[in-house]
């Protein structure tokens, strides 16, 4: 038996520096080799304060101190899948920015049939820089429970 995640549960509040290694690894993984996204000098000559952080590089779990959020969010990787990701940018983020983040369980939807229960959990994270909202991210997980939910 598994507990249903509770809406409003705070998974973590964090402060993190957006480091260059993160952006390089992400860019390399998707095959991007534009100097503006790799070389700080080129980025600055193009008018940026540093290398722009791609919006997809903001993922809440990469900032959390440990994996204890998984249990609180009812996520277990042998039966959970990330099915949707939404990002809303309010300002461009750059390498070196310090973001303050707050991740919580935003919505939970439970659908049961005679064979299984599907729990859809949305984890919402707000990122701010210097007190100003910079980005909002939502990740939707779908978890299949063959057993009855509590």
């Amino acid at each position: 038996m598994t507990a249903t995640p509770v809406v409003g549960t705070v998974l973590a509040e964090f402060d993190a520096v957006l480091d260059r290694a993160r952006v390089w690894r992400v860019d390399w993984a998707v095959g991007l080799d534009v100097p503006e996204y790799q070389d700080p000098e080129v980025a600055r000559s193009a008018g940026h304060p540093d290398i722009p952080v791609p919006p997809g590089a903001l993922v809440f779990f990469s900032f959390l101190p440990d994996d204890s959020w998984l249990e609180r969010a009812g996520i277990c990787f042998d039966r959970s899948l990330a099915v949707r990701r939404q990002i809303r940018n309010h300002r461009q983020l750059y390498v070196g920015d310090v973001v303050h983040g707050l991740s919580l369980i935003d919505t939970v939807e439970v659908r049961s049939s005679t064979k299984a229960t599907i729990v859809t959990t949305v984890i919402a994270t707000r990122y701010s820089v210097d007190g100003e909202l910079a980005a909002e991210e939502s990740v939707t997980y779908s978890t299949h429970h063959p057993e009855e939910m509590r």
Partner: protein
Amino acid sequence: MSDDCEFSTGALTKERIAQFSVAMQDPNPVHLDPSFCASIGLPGIIAPGGIGVVAIAHAIGLRYEARTIRELDISFRSPVHVGESLRCRFEVIDEKGPTMTLTAHTTGDDGRTCADGTVTVEGEMEEQHEDLRGAGACVPCQGRGARVRNHRRCDVAVVRGHGRLGRDEWQSRSERPAVSQPTPSGR
């Protein structure tokens, strides 16, 4: 209102998937551990959905450089397996002033949809038919009427309707002097 363009990630090797997972500190073992994948019935490790999101964001950034991505809403439809390439494709579905809404699709090697959704970008796009450096006529367009935008450093050009031209192709199609490639520093 169609404005298709394409971008491919190239083959997503095990190493590239691992790099992305490490960068994201992704706790899901399906991206790193083949034995875990086997235990849940997967034939092998799969790429994080975030790779598709980043690929879409990058592709749009290359295509519409002067625009800022305001919103992405991407749904993951099917897993991406090791060695597959993701192809990103867009279509403009609405354009009002500086705001443009696009549909985005990523497909795997067999053409199946891996992720899709919508992206909203904002900002004025620089468009011009002449080389920003004043070296002459719009070489990539070659008089075909494509709208050309320089990629700021003159070593990459984005040609609306003609895809992205790399530095070599740009140079081979123009007679401009070579542009030195910046050396990444601070790594």
